């Protein structure tokens, strides 16, 4: 599934005056994965990413990208990485094709610029000024700039922040395309849904420290193993029957609606089996899986949005 790590971060610390932005942060990003650094705003995501990109120098710790030091070997690395920065802007009156052309001129080997614009749905905007683009179009242009040198590793910092849901879904599709072409993606997001949909592996960062990391499913299983099944039935013995199931922890009844909480992969199967076995007439059936949102709440006691 994964190769040798392309990014190795060990024990980095970065302070701004008295504020500790990042403390003792260590992680690895395996080749070919979409890796997400997730957490609330101000948690240290961007600082960490910019240290890895070589834009900032950590006060302590060690970073290797492709085995190279991001600051000492900045130029050697720039050929192999593509960077999209959070809240970046371009000259208001630069045209889309001019930006891509400028970026292309900085590298010896590039992908076909027109093809790239086409892929990102920007072909009809190639002569538009940057200031006239929508938020989603700007982000797609920044993705184009990040991909122009056909990088092996792509950095995406808060790529969909401020975009409407439709633009967000378009961008998610593009990120999956990048990964499908064998590139490694390192992204940051404060949107747990985004991390859950895109990332193979996530590290949760809060107050400058990484509090856990795993696959999204792994984190959910470890920290929020309990899942729920909602059943609407008028069957008199329903609650008792469900309560007797091995994987069920608790059953609560409100009117004819039952909430069955339990753990393990068999919970849903057992519930359905129980329904059919006892011939219960069901008018509604819904399951609910815990999400990374719940994991964050469990780990920090706060919602990621607070």
């Amino acid at each position: 599934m994964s190769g040798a790590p392309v990014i190795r971060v060990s024990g980095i610390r970065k302070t701004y005056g008295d504020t500790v932005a990042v403390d003792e942060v260590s992680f690895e990003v395996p080749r070919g994965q979409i890796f997400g650094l997730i957490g609330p705003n101000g948690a240290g995501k961007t600082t960490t990413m910019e240290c890895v990109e070589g834009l900032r120098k950590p006060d302590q710790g060690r970073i290797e990208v492709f085995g190279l030091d991001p600051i000492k070997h900045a130029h050697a690395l720039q050929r192999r990485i593509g960077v999209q920065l959070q809240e970046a802007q371009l000259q208001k009156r630069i045209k889309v094709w001019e930006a891509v052309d400028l970026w292309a001129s900085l590298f010896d080997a590039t992908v076909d610029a027109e093809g790239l614009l086409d892929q990102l749905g920007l072909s009809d905007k190639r002569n538009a000024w940057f200031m006239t683009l929508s938020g989603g179009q700007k982000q797609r242009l920044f993705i184009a700039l990040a991909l122009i040198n056909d990088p092996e590793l792509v950095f995406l910092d808060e790529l969909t922040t401020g975009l409407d849901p439709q633009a967000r879904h378009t961008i998610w599709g593009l990120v999956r395309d990048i990964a499908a072409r064998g590139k490694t993606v390192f992204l940051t997001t404060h949107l747990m849904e985004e991390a859950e949909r895109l990332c193979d592996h996530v590290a949760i960062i809060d107050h400058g420290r990484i509090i856990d990391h795993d696959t999204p499913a792994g984190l959910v299983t470890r920290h929020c193993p309990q899942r729920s099944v909602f059943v609407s039935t008028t069957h008199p013995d329903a609650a008792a029957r469900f309560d007797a199931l091995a994987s069920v922890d608790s059953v609560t009844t409100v009117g004819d609606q039952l909430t069955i909480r339990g753990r393990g992969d068999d919970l849903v199967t057992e519930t359905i089996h129980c329904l059919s076995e006892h011939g219960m007439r069901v008018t509604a059936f819904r399951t609910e899986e815990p999400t990374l949102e719940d994991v964050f709440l469990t780990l920090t006691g706060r919602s990621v949005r607070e």
Partner: protein
Amino acid sequence: MTPMPVLATLRGLLKLTWLEIKVFVREPMGLIGNVVIPVGIFVVLGRAVGSRLGDLTSGFATQMRVGLPVFGAIFIAINTVLSLVAIIAIYREGGILKRLRATPLSPITILVAHVLVKLMFTAVTVTVMVLVGRRYYPAGTDVPVVSFTFAMLLSTWSILSLGFIIASLVRTARFAPPLGSLVLYSMLPFCGLFRPIDTFPDGMQIVARALPLTPAVSLLSGIWQGNPWSAHLDDVAALVVVFAVCTLIASRVFRWE
């Protein structure tokens, strides 16, 4: 550290410079403020007093004949520096500088591109001004346009380095033009433009001679009057020193974001 190949750097510099020229021309206010207004003011002033100068032999006439174009040149130089300060502040605030820095373009290349663009527009403005101004100046004042433009570029280049320090000190784009104007315009009365420096009190003379605008004024006046460059080596040296010192300070305090 593996350096970026010279060729790619040059290609990036040319591309960026050309791009910044196009972007600048697309902004109507920039073009009006930097080219149209200085030339316009010069023409208006020239019309008002220039045609009468031919009859006068007084010191006033000389003052106007030399002082006005030099004032115009200094005005353009200050304008150029202010627009550089503004653009750097805007680019920094908008994250454009940071976005460019995260590319193989070296930070120096980005700044050099801006300086080139500013110098190019300075050259255009000053050339237009001199050519237009010729109409209002009587025969005999055959102005060395090429030399004057070159002196103008040297002066602007030197004062631009002061602009980088100002651009480093301002926190937001909103305060960049006021602070720049304050610093640059407050030098105007003391740089020998309106009153020869020799006529200042001793203490003031030392201050006046230390101002970066002073050698610029001296060089521009001399060249406009037809002095050879060799007579102004001290001014040229002073401008180079101003550039070196300001660039050194700017490189220490410059902020990209």
